[in-house]
């Protein structure tokens, strides 16, 4: 199998019945998804189970994947749902019907245009202070700064409007800044 093939090309082969090729997708995404999951849980066994479940669901639902779209946000969407389930079970998180951030329209922030050295700084601080930020803001910060996804991809993964992604990023950074200043951590 050509390792230069895109994810979407491999998905097409899997959809057509070559299940062995699914192994390539596992190889490509296992580490990324583990890194993503580790930001929400430190329990190694939990992470292994979640990753397995993510791949099982990916395989079961692979025929619903639209080949015109990118595979990466799709698989992260499955991971997002699995991690939410784990957090709900473990931390007994309430299941809010309405998240105020998603109810009303927000102006789209211009921050997305300046991915720069500032972002490396945020990434560094984020690793130190991640646990101090609620999962709602944490996830957007991880997807943007660590997984380096754009607003549209994050919106497709979490199923929130693009403008809400901007709002959560902004608030997440404010929380980060405030925590850093309270704990004498150098940030900006």
């Amino acid at each position, binding site marked *: 199998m050509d390792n230069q093939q895109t994810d979407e090309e491999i998905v097409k082969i899997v959809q057509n019945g070559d299940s062995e090729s699914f192994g390539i997708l596992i190889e490509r995404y296992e580490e990324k998804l583990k890194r993503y999951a580790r930001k929400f849980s430190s329990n190694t066994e939990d992470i292994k189970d979640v990753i*397995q479940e993510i*791949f099982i669901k990916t395989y*079961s*639902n692979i025929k619903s994947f639209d080949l015109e779209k990118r595979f990466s946000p799709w698989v992260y969407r499955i991971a997002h749902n699995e991690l939410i389930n784990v957090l709900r079970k473990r931390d007994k998180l309430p299941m809010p019907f309405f998240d105020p951030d*998603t109810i009303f*329209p927000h102006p789209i922030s211009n921050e997305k245009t300046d991915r720069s050295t500032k972002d490396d700084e945020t990434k560094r601080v984020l690793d130190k202070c991640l646990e101090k930020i609620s999962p709602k803001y944490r996830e957007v910060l991880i997807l943007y700064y660590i997984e380096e996804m754009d607003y549209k991809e994050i*919106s497709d993964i979490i199923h*929130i409007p693009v403008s809400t992604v901007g709002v959560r990023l902004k608030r997440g950074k404010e929380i980060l800044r405030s925590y850093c200043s309270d704990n004498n951590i150098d940030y900006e």
Partner: protein
Amino acid sequence: MNNNEEKNSIKNEILKEIKKGDIKMHPKIYFVLKSALLIVVAVLLFILIAYLTSYSIFYLENNGARFLLRSGLGGLVDIFHAVPLILIFLLLLLFYLIEKTIKKFNFAYKRPLIYSFLFVVIIAVGFGFFLHKNPLQKTLSCGLPQNHNLNAPNTFKGEIIEINENEIKIQDINGEIIYTIMPSESFKMEERELERGDRIIFRGKRDDKKIINISSFQKLNCGCEGCDPDDFRKFKP
């Protein structure tokens, strides 16, 4: 287990289970049916909301909502009281369910929730008004009991049990008999077509003899009995 072994273990375990047939790909038709089911559920919920909305409008009209609207704040409170609580809870539950269902569609999350929610409310309520004249509404609404007390000041309702010239004896929902007088100079009984058994809502003040001088009234259950709900009369003082 080192990192490479662990990596291979997840990959190998999953591929082994796929080969054994423990993990299977859902066929395309599964997703088509799932989407179709979602659409059917959304449409059914929508129809139910529209129908219940229309039912509420019909019910309120039959119970003097227009009359109560002319009775100030107390009248507004009465309008809320007039809708059976179960209907309000049912409508709220249906709005919750339809919002949950709509959120499952890919187009829904791209816009703030308020848009899809308002869209559903406006369309369903609009459709509810459209259904308002449906004969089935009559059958459902007319059978419902109207057993709440009114909060609007000097406003009463009950069933006519006796008519003598301009004096009308009315029994309210608590079984109490109310003696009322219609102003004879501006009221001709035969023109109003009031008769024993009619349910009316009326406003007026009690005099020293505890007789209520009716200043305005409206027949209830017009949608059920064929009278005009706009046939409202206010007497000159």
